């Protein structure tokens, strides 16, 4: 579904991503793990068109994406839940969801919103509330719900567990698994390697802009290198 081949990404003179290749097949949960600053967010931004790779290609559903503006990428069925959630703080919960459905037809919106509320009843209770006043966990649910509004084939999540209490982290990972079971392919970026590898079919380990290891979730969990660097022993 998503095939990234030999991409190099720069911020000015900074060479952030070096010759990275990976793929995500339909129906999978694939995780990209790595320390802070490894380049995980940069890769997601490159896929969604916020950044353009200097060399290499990004293919999504057999279409080459390089240079496609990100609003077009979203329209093709790829949604990106950015790091730090980035919900629209001054818009209401429901308006945030409407923005998530910006690319959909007007008459589809009410049913899509209902679907999100069924998944996240907390959001229904707070649908008129200004989003900036939600708690961290609720904001993450809103960010995921908003991304669901575009009916994506592939959802990319950038550190959805960041800053959440352990119980909420469990809940978020549970939701990601459910989403996947309902047919959404997932590319998950995490620093919480343990949780991510548990639910992932496959994973890639990123270090200083390079992929140093890849394998199934179970293989990576068993790997000494991963254990040492990311699983605390």
């Amino acid at each position, binding site marked *: 579904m998503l095939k990234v081949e030999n991409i190099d990404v720069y911020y000015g003179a900074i060479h952030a991503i070096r010759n990275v290749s990976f793929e995500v097949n339909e129906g999978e949960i694939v995780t990209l793990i790595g320390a802070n600053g490894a380049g995980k967010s940069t890769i997601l931004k490159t896929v969604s068109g916020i950044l353009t790779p200097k060399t290499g290609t990004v293919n999504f559903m057999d279409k080459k994406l390089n240079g496609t*503006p990100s*609003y077009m990428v979203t329209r093709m069925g790829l949604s990106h839940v*950015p790091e*730090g959630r*980035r919900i*629209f703080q001054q818009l209401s919960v429901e308006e945030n969801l*409407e*923005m998530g459905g910006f690319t959909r037809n*007007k008459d589809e919106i009410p049913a899509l919103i209902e679907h999100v509320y069924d998944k996240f009843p907390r959001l229904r209770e707070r649908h008129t509330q200004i989003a900036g006043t939600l708690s961290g966990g609720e904001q993450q649910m809103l960010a995921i719900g908003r991304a669901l509004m*575009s009916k994506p084939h592939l959802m990319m999540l950038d550190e959805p567990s960041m800053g959440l209490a352990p119980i909420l982290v469990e809940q978020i990972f549970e939701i990601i698994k459910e989403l996947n079971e309902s047919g959404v392919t997932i590319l998950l970026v995490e620093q919480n390697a343990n949780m991510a590898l548990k639910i992932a079919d496959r994973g890639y380990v990123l270090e200083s802009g390079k992929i140093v290891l890849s394998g199934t979730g179970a293989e990576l969990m068993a790997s000494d290198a991963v254990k040492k660097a990311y699983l605390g022993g």
Partner: protein
Amino acid sequence: MDFLSTLISGLSLGSIYALIALGYTMVYGIAKMLNFAHGDIIMVAAFTVYVFATVLKLPAAATIPLAVLFCMLLGVTIERIAYKPLRKAPPLSVLITAIGVSYFLQNLALLIFGSNQKSFPKIINIPALKLGQLTIKGESIATLSVSIVIMLALTLFISRSKMGKAMRAVSEDKEAAELMGINVNQTISVTFAIGSALAVAAGVFYGATYNFIGPYTGSMPGIKAFVAAVFGGIGSIPGAMLGGILLGVIENLSKAYISTELSDAIVFAVLIIILYVKPTGLLGRKTNEKV
């Protein structure tokens, strides 16, 4: 009665400032730039009406829609040519470019129409309203009523319509808005188009109130409306309306009761005091910190 008629003409002048201030504040909110050429769009609007009505002798009903169309295209074109390439440039470069555009429009008008003032065509023909001793000029009635309708419509558009919500989303976070599938460049164009359409309304009422127009007609109301936008809280739509109306009222009251020469100084002094007490303006809010 004198006080009341001063107040009404102040409200009418204030709603002209408000219409212009809305253009400043919306563009600032969305493109995060001060479009210093915005005042000159008013001048262009007034000359466009002059050309259509006085030179080409078109009926008033055709003149205004044509001027709106022309100025919307002009506003969008200026954004595309002059500002869009600078989307990622430092704010100072954008500001200097906007000042350059302002001089360009003024000098172009000077070249085409010369420096003599032209008399603005009489396209608003509403008789004055007499209520006992109070007389309200036809121009004031037109300005006030049309401005109120425009401001209500704009408020509804921003709060309810899909495009209006997208504009608020873009003003908060362009990258996130783009990830929703919102075409940010298109949203910015729409904002410039709306700002320019409002400037046409302002230009027509300004011309009708002062009767004469020249290449520099836009600069003083432009600066005052900018002040009004800051006064109300730059980026805030109700703030621009409130700021514009207050500014017009303060200006007219000081002209009537303090001094004609000092009225502008008084207006600016009030601004300085307000900003000293509330740096974000009357209805402005602190910029949100990123989580």
